[in-house]
């Protein structure tokens, strides 16, 4: 692999032991994946924040790296934590968990990272431009950056993204190279797509069929997915099929700019979403928690919930997870008042997949997120109902899932 003089110097330790270790990681990954050189990155999204996921091992490593002087050299944002960093006591998070979680975010803060604690960095100021090279982790954010923004990133893991932030470089392979961004699977989606849950179900189904190929969607005339729909589609596909990039004809930027379709692409037809709904939806009636905001909710989604609630009192807990900056925007538009007035709440900073839900006596959840459903089942072993946002709000009002 060719390294610049500056990169060689960092590898020898001229920026200190922490930066040296970071460069060792970036270079080793380049070797492992056959990169010829490194590429400068303009931003980084770091996963590996929730204490429930990284555990004591992760906390100790991060604290020590921060103490050794690890500092980021490019704008770097952070994935969600396992709790709201401010309102954890009100939400009943056990103190031992909370204190460890706060140590994790402190270590990241010491490294110079913005404590954005969101899986939607692109909604809170980290929004790379078309063709920009970045190093992001968090599968749904990676999918959004590549597909919706047209930036270029591989699916980084937590430590490799952090190493990229400290060195300002990542290995140039995979999706950093234009030839690997061609679609080899055409999805003719003739099904109706009316809600975010529909886009989730479609993504879930397609993710199971991609087999490492970049999919290219052709949607029905008149279906114009916006940012929230694309976010739901990409997140579900990343969960079920590790899809890091997709194109939508006439919608996503690369598909509009150049011919992204490989000549040997296979074509599949999806005429109904029934299979997706059947695999995602469970059968539990009583629901402990209704969850909207996986990936983190946009202002438009929060407003949709407030409108559907229309002042009714809730029988089940309703939590909307969102980035803190989005929560603040919701507060200033009085959406928080409208939702809290009904008994719901907006939880900032958190992802429920890594949250201590069992300690909060939550064993059944309803959500409109395909990704959330997938991981709540596999990571937390919970009962999950999957349906539209409207169905989820009705469930929160009734206290049970209505068929």
């Amino acid at each position, binding site marked *: 692999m060719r390294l610049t003089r500056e990169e060689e110097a960092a590898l020898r330790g001229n920026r200190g032991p922490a930066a040296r*270790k970071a460069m*060792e*990681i970036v270079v*080793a*990954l380049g*070797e*492992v994946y056959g990169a010829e050189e490194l590429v400068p990155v303009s931003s980084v999204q770091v996963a*590996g924040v929730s204490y429930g*996921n*990284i*555990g*004591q*091992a*992760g906390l*100790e*490593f991060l604290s020590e*790296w921060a103490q050794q002087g690890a500092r980021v050299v490019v704008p770097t944002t952070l994935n969600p934590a396992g709790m709201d960093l401010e309102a954890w006591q009100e939400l009943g998070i056990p103190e031992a968990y909370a204190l460890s979680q706060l140590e994790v975010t402190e270590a990241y803060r010491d490294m110079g990272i913005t404590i954005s604690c969101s899986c939607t960095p692109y909604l809170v100021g980290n929004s790379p431009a078309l063709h920009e090279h970045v190093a992001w982790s968090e599968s749904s954010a990676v999918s959004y950056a590549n597909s919706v923004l047209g930036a270029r990133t591989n699916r980084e*893991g*937590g*430590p*490799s993204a952090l*190493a990229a932030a400290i060195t300002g470089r990542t290995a140039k392979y995979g999706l950093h190279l234009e030839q690997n961004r061609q679609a080899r699977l055409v999805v003719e989606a003739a099904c109706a797509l009316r809600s975010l849950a529909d886009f989730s179900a479609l993504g879930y189904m397609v993710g199971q069929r991609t087999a490492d190929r970049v999919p290219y969607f052709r949607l029905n005339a008149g279906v114009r997915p916006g940012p929230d729909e694309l976010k739901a589609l990409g997140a579900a596909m990343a969960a079920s099929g590790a899809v890091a990039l997709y194109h939508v004809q006439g919608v996503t930027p690369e598909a509009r700019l150049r011919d992204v379709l490989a000549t040997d692409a296979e074509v599949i037809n999806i005429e109904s979403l029934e299979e997706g709904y059947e695999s995602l939806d469970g059968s539990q009636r009583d629901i402990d928690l209704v969850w909207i905001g996986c990936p983190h909710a946009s202002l438009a989604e929060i407003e949709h919930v407030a409108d559907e609630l229309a002042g009714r009192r809730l029988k089940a807990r309703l939590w909307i997870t969102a980035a803190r900056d989005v929560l603040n925007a919701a507060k200033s538009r009085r959406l928080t008042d409208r939702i809290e007035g009904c008994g719901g709440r907006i939880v900032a900073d958190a992802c429920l997949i890594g949250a201590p839900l069992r300690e909060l006596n939550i064993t059944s959840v309803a959500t409109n997120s395909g990704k959330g459903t997938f991981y709540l089942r596999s990571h937390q072993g919970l009962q999950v109902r999957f349906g539209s946002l409207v169905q989820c709000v009705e469930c929160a009002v009734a206290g049970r899932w209505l068929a």
Partner: protein
Amino acid sequence: MKLQGRAIRRGYAKGEALVSHQPIGFFGGVDPQTGMIVEAGHQLEGQPIGGRILVFPQGKGSTVGSYTLYQLRKNGLAPAGIINEQSEAIVAVGAIIADIPMIDSIDISQIATGDTVTIDGTLVQVNRVNTQA
């Protein structure tokens, strides 16, 4: 016998080989408090990896596995060295942050559990004590 590989984390290590022909997932698959492989049904289930030259095709599972290797090191239970057929990000990053010498691109069928193995840069030296020449 000498084998030539590719240094993922350059260094020197010597120890008794512990060989798995199945991939190893460190997060959830290895207990950082005991250093034992705990994945149910794994070929090496119940085996301690501390101080051994751990030989396996490649890593698998969660990227948090890198941190498990680091914690094994802190607890004095890390393998002395790692040899992979084809490394991937989880174990490669783990070896670097835990300072475990690691080589890949090695034909691991040439190494058996119990062999004395030395890792030195890009070279692996294998000595088999119990077989007749």
